[in-house]
Structures are given as structure tokens and as C-alpha cells.
């Protein structure tokens, strides 16, 4: 952390209450004497030096602007601790762009240059899940925000903070003819309002300051979500008016909502009295302390844990992690504790993808379902990401991670000695079940072990072999590789896995991996991205971004040469209609000709090899690629794989 940032943070902490202090406030002025300026005290110094742009001298001539408003906007980014701003350049935010590179020296924040606004937002999405704080992304008014919108939606569904700043030109008399009219909206926020938590279009720098602090604070309060600020072009480019009148509210985090005491005690009574309890966690854990708290709770009641992998909630090697026994655990459970489960209805039932789409329930009719989630506190309805409604036995509005400590206290207070003995006796069977679960995965992995194209199990284990002794992280979703990493590797740190898209929007994977890799670089870790081919083709330009910024990232293609999920869908349609199932591959293959992904990566300036189809060649290729990554650059392997 630079000395300047340390100073600014300390100044913010010490001088927060003085942020609204105006110069000379409280200093008595002698009567009938020439006014004198009191020497600034420590608090005034702090207030004035927090925002150096407010001290910039205006230009002495009309041909220059000495203190542009965008310098102030960049100061706000710094005060918020935002280290990076992802952007594909756009004229509507040219003011902020220049302020980042000249006023801020392209450091804290630093630009991450992108070739598409969707990449800008998705990079910010992946970054935030590792760094624990948002990245900003700059988007170019209408067309840029439209490009970014799917990535913002993914982050919304995934409950991830993101600061989106969109340029715009509100004053019609200041828009140049043609392009600046196409690139302006009366209500830019309307494009994304259904999947942002807050948006505003400030009309003055004081307004901008207050909105920025509010937006940042809301974005970082669970449920964390993207927010949008419109940075008017004139506000960016005109001189700062009345700088001494401008003050910045302090950045003060909102304490996350903790579940109510009575509800936690009721939950504790259910867990203590349960015969077959199950804990299910989805987007619950965001820090190592949170994971430790969940482990402590699960151990206290000897309850198996099903990790739905919206984040990495529970260590895979812990005997209580019984994720792949989910079906039988849920069907037998008498108490289910759901922690930030995004689809509670889907946990307890399904709609089968057969003709008629019948509903099928998994749970016992008398199961006690307890749900702890911030989704009860904040929701929107146009986008249907809230999933199907279910009324649990006990619905608790609160942040799951923040509630774990108090819940454990309640369990320790409520559980009786006989109940503790019952829980203790569950342990041997649970240990055996966990061992069996892992052993079953080992044996399942042997199928197609030496096949070409390479099996996803073989791919996963070859990757594990080169990263397991490093400070590693998996920055891609494991869904399409049959979750082999979680079934076979040893995950025990929250940052080793960050879940998936959120909204299942294709195109998240490659840029989110780059964003996550930026955060891992700052923490000295080695990230690996097992990259699907269809996803990469949405935003291949992120390969250039990774090469340009020299982001250490090992990308290993899961190249099955198809939009395989859609192949299965079309084949299902054909079967339903008693027509040719072979038509499932019509319009869903990425072949004929096959794409040369290694060549694509090399064209973007990245070291690459492939395609590799012989499993015996994969290990040596990975070793070569890892040398590059450990030397501080991205590396890419194209691997031809089995479909799943």
C-alpha cells in the first residue's frame, strides 16, 4: 500500500467527521481589522488534502482547464480504495480517462484496457469476488452500457459489487451533432435499473460526491450488487466550480444485517433436535473467517454440508462436506438450514425437462426448512432471478455469514447433553460416507482415462498435478467439467473458487478469469482458468487484455468444439418429435472448420500451445505453461476434450 493511500485512509478515518468542515469555520474574525486567515489545524489539513483536486488552481487562460471535474471524480475512486478501472475507451468518459492516466498517473486506480464493455464489466465481476471489494468499469453511454448490460446482469444475479460509471451529455446544447446524440440518453440508468441496486445522474460535483459515496456503500452492503453512476461529460470536462464549497461524505461501511435472536434460537433448537440435519450453503461465505465459522457450526451439530458452490463455502476435504450425496441427504433430512441459497424452491424440488414439465418434490412433507438470506430484505421483480417462491418453515432476513457466530452461540446454549451425545454418535457414519463419496469420484474418474479427446477427469487431474503445490486458485466454473475439481482436489480457502456466472450468461468465463487473476496477482497467487470454447468466443479480446497487462493466468481450454448444452437441448426436441436425434448437432457445433484457439491466443500476444488431444502430452505442456505463468505472464493451452 503506498504511503499516499495510507495517508488518505488514515485521513479519512481521522477526519471523517470533518469532511463537511468549511475553511475558517469556528474561527472568530476580529472586528474592523483586515480579515486574517487562521492557520489550518490538523482536521482542516486532513479535510483539504483528502481531495487534492479541490486544491488545483484553475487555469489562467480560457484555452485551458486547470482543475477539471473529472480529477475530482478520480479522487473519489481513490478515496473508496478502488484500485482498477476497466474500460474500453469512449468519448463520453474521455475526461475521467485522462484524469486516471495523467492526474492519477494510471495508478490507484489503474486502467485495465478492454476491447468490449461487456469484458469491462465481467472483469470487474471476477475481480470483486477475489479482492472482496469492487472494481469500477467505465462504459460509453448508450452503446457501451448496452454492451456491458449482460455482464452487469450476471453480477446482479451473483450478488457481486461493481461500480459502473457511464458517460453521458445531459445538456442538449453541448452535444456535437450526430454521434453524441446517438450516445446520449435521457435516463441512462433505465437500461440497467432492473439489475442494479442504485443509479443516479448527478448534476453537480457535490451531488456526484454524495451519490458516489451512497452508491459505493450500497454496492458493498449485503446483498451486494452493481450500481450505476452517470458521469455527465460537461461535469467531467468543466472546471470545478466553488471547490471550497464541496465536501465528500465519509465512506462508512454498513454493518451487515444479523439474523434476529429469537429466530436463531429457534433454528438452534431445530438443529439440536434433528435426526438428519443438513446445512446447504450457496453464496454464503465471502471470507476465510466466514468459512471457519461455518465449519465450527457444522462440527457443533455434526451436520453434513452441501456446498452449492455459488462461492467456496466449505473445505472439500472436511468429512462433513457431503456435497455429492445431496440427493439422498435432502430426501432424508428432517431439518435443512439453507444459507444464502439462491434457489430455495429448486433445492427442494424440480420441474422435469420432459413433456408436460411435471413438478417433483424431493423433501419429506414435514421437513423443517430454515432459510437465512439477505434476499428477503431486497429484491426486484422484472428479472426473475429470485426463482420460484417457497415459504420455508422459518424465513430469516439476514446475512448468513454475519449470522453464523450468533447461531453457533445459540446452538451451544440450547443443545442438551443427550442431544450432544446423539450428534457425536453421527460422526463415524458421516466420516465413512465422506470417504465413500471421494472414493466413488476417484473410481468414476478412471472412465475414459486414456481417451482422446481427453476426458474432463484427466484434464482436471493433470491441472491439479501442476498447481497443487503452488498458492493456487481456480477462477472458472467447474460445472461443465463435471465438477471434478471439487470432487477430487483439496479446497480449503475461500479464494480458491469463486463460483460461476450468476445469471448463467455465456461470455462471463474468460473476462471474469482475467479480473480474478488481477486480484490474485496482487495477492501473489497462481490462478488457473479451465476455459470453455463457446464462452471464449464471446469476448476473445480479453486474451489481449491479459497479455497487454501481463496478468499471470494459466488458461487451459475445455474445447469440446460445441455449444454442448444446446446440442442436448436440440436433440431432446428431436426425440420429443420422433424426428432425427442426429440433428441435435445442427447449429450447435463449433467445428468445420475447427477454431485454432492457440493461434488465436498467440495473435493476441499470449504464449500458447495446442491443440492437444493425446492425454500423455498434456502433463508436459502444462509444465511448460506453468513456467510462463510463474514468470509473470499469461499462458494458454488448447486441449481437445470430451463433452462433459
Amino acid at each position, binding site marked *: 500500500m503506498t504511503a499516499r493511500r495510507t495517508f488518505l485512509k488514515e485521513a479519512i478515518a481521522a477526519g471523517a467527521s470533518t469532511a463537511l468542515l468549511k475553511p475558517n469555520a469556528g474561527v472568530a474574525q476580529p472586528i474592523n481589522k483586515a480579515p486574517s486567515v487562521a492557520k489550518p489545524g490538523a482536521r482542516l489539513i486532513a479535510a483539504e488534502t483528502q481531495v487534492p483536486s479541490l486544491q488545483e488552481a484553475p487555469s489562467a487562460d480560457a484555452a485551458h482547464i486547470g482543475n477539471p471535474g473529472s480529477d475530482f471524480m478520480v479522487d473519489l475512486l481513490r478515496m473508496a480504495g478502488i484500485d482498477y478501472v476497466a474500460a474500453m475507451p469512449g468519448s463520453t468518459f474521455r475526461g475521467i480517462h485522462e484524469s486516471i492516466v495523467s492526474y492519477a498517473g494510471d495508478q490507484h486506480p489503474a486502467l485495465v484496457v478492454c476491447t468490449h464493455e461487456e469484458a469491462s464489466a465481467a472483469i470487474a465481476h471476477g475481480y470483486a469476488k477475489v479482492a472482496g471489494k469492487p472494481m469500477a468499469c467505465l462504459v460509453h453511454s448508450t452503446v457501451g452500457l448496452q454492451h456491458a448490460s449482460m455482464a452487469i446482469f450476471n453480477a446482479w444475479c451473483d450478488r457481486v459489487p461493481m461500480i459502473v460509471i457511464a458517460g453521458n451529455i445531459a445538456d442538449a446544447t453541448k452535444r456535437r451533432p450526430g454521434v453524441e446524440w446517438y450516445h446520449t440518453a435521457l435516463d441512462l440508468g433505465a437500461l440497467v435499473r432492473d439489475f442494479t441496486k442504485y443509479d443516479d445522474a448527478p448534476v453537480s460535483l457535490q451531488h456526484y460526491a454524495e451519490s458516489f459515496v451512497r452508491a459505493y456503500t450500497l454496492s458493498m452492503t449485503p446483498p451486494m450488487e452493481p450500481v450505476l453512476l452517470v458521469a455527465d461529460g460537461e461535469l467531467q470536462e468543466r472546471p470545478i466550480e466553488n471547490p471550497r464549497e464541496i465536501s465528500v461524505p465519509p465512506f462508512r461501511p454498513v454493518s451487515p444485517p444479523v439474523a434476529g435472536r429469537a429466530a436463531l434460537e429457534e433454528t438452534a433448537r431445530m438443529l439440536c433436535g434433528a435426526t438428519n440435519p443438513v446445512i446447504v450453503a450457496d453464496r454464503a461465505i465471502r471470507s476465510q473467517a466466514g468459512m471457519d465459522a461455518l465449519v465450527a457450526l457444522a462440527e457443533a451439530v455434526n451436520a453434513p454440508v452441501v456446498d452449492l458452490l455459488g462461492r467456496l463455502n466449505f473445505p472439500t476435504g472436511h468429512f462433513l462436506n457431503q456435497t*455429492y*450425496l445431496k*440427493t*439422498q441427504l435432502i430426501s432424508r433430512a428432517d431439518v435443512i438450514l439453507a444459507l444464502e441459497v439462491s434457489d430455495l424452491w429448486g433445492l427442494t424440488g424440480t420441474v*422435469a*425437462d*420432459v413433456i408436460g414439465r411435471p413438478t417433483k418434490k424431493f423433501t419429506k412433507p414435514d421437513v423443517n426448512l430454515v432459510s437465512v438470506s439477505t434476499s428477503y430484505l431486497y429484491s426486484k421483480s422484472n428479472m426473475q432471478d429470485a426463482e420460484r417462491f417457497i415459504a420455508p418453515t422459518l424465513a430469516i432476513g439476514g446475512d448468513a455469514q454475519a449470522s453464523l457466530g450468533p447461531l453457533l452461540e445459540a446452538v451451544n446454549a440450547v443443545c442438551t447433553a443427550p442431544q450432544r451425545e446423539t450428534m457425536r454418535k453421527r460422526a463415524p457414519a458421516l466420516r465413512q*460416507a465422506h*470417504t*465413500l*463419496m*471421494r*472414493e*466413488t469420484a*476417484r*473410481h*468414476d*474418474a*478412471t*472412465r*475414459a*482415462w*486414456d*481417451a482422446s*479427446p481427453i*476426458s*474432463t477427469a*484427466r484434464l482436471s*487431474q*493433470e491441472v*491439479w*498435478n501442476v498447481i497443487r503445490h503452488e498458492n493456487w486458485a481456480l477462477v472458472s466454473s467447474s*460445472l*461443465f467439467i*463435471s*465438477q471434478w475439481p471439487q470432487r*477430487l482436489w483439496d479446497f480449503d480457502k475461500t479464494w480458491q473458487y469463486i463460483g460461476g456466472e450468476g445469471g448463467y450468461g455465456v461470455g462471463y468465463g474468460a473476462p471474469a478469469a482475467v479480473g480474478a487473476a488481477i486480484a490474485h496477482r496482487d495477492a501473489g497467487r497462481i490462478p488457473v482458468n479451465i476455459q470453455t470454447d463457446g464462452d471464449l468466443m464471446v469476448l476473445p479480446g480479453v486474451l489481449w487484455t491479459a497479455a497487454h497487462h501481463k496478468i499471470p493466468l494459466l488458461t487451459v481450454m475445455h474445447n469440446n468444439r460445441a455449444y*454442448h448444452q444446446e*446440442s*442436448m437441448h436440440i*436433440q*431432446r426436441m*428431436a*426425440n*420429443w418429435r*420422433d*424426428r*432425427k*436425434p*442426429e440433428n*441435435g*448437432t445442427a447449429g450447435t457445433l463449433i467445428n468445420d472448420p475447427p477454431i485454432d484457439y492457440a493461434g488465436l491466443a498467440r495473435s493476441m500476444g499470449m504464449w500458447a500451445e495446442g491443440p492437444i488431444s493425446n492425454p500423455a502430452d498434456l502433463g508436459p505442456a502444462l509444465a511448460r505453461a506453468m513456467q510462463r505463468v510463474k514468470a509473470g505472464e499469461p499462458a494458454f493451452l488448447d486441449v481437445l476434450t*470430451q*463433452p*462433459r
Partner: protein
Amino acid sequence: MKPIRMIALAVSALACLIDMTSPPAMAVQADVHAGQGLYMKKGCYECHGPVGQGSIMSGPALAPSPLPVEAMTAYVRSPKGQMPLYSSKILSNRDLAQIQAYLAAVPASPDADSIALLGGASTASSSKDDSERGQQVYVARCASCHGASGGGAVGPSLVDVAKRRGVSGIESFVRNPSGAMPKLFPEVLTESDVQAVAQYVARLR
């Protein structure tokens, strides 16, 4: 009989003899090759993998040790779960037989304990104790259909099966299965394997 006719008869007889001794393996190999083509063409690979390996995300493993062709045919015509139905119009019985031949030809998977990338020796005990051996056999040969804890998956639950069949009944069924269960003895399971896994299954609660 004229000599030319005798020669012709002899050649004809010889040809028949050759036909009668044409190795059935050639016909089987043709079925395997055709079956592989049909397996891919009819889209089976999309959910079950090109080598029948299956995936927890799309469909169970079909190989090695596939279902008998009768059980496979019956299931495909009236599948449970979310598998789409294949009528005889789009997949004939003959096609299914060839597909089954292909799957039956998929070689046995290597032992996980022999693969360094899978951790080498099993994390479960490699003790020669029968109970541990039974668990190992179950994990390797049974869990993919009957579930890791015997609670059922594609195959039925085995919990409390000993109450209905007893240990000897379980052994007998493993040796000579009926219905959809593949016959694993003696090609895949030894007699000691059968006894060990039966003991193990009998203890499933």
C-alpha cells in the same frame, strides 16, 4: 460326374466350410464399429459421453459393463427421469444391439489405485480385511448405479436389502443378475469379490 463338376462341388463345399468357420468375432467387430457410429450419430454420446463414461451433469455411465441389450432396449423405449424417449422409428432394435455391442467392447477402466494422478493407493484402507475389500469393490463397481452410500441412483437403493435377500441371496444375485443389472461375475468380479461385496452391502442401513 464330370471332373469339372466335381471340382465345382468341392470348391462350393470348401466355401461353405470357410463360411461356417468365419470367426463370429468379425461379425461382432462389425457390430462394434457400426454401434460406435450409431452411438455418436443418435446423440447418445451427448449425455453419456463418447466412451460411455457418463457425467454427473448429464447422464450416468453406460460402460464398461453395460446393461444387457434387453434391459437397455426396454429402458430406451420407456425411460425414467429426464432421458428423452427413443422410439423404434428413430432407433431400431438392431441399432440398439449394435450400440450395446460397442459399449460392451469398451475396455475396463484402469484401477484408480494404479493412477498416480488419482492419488495412487486408495485413501480407504487397502487392508485385506474382507469388510474393507467389500467397500473397495462396492466403490469401484457398484456405487455408480446404486449410489455412494447405497441409497440408489440409476439403480435401486440397497439399504436394508439384506432383510429381503440375506447375504447368500445378495451373492447369488450378483453372480446371476436379472433385469437391468449387468453381469459382472466372473469377468469383472472374482468369487472373493462377490463374497466381500455381499457382506458389505448386507451392512448398508
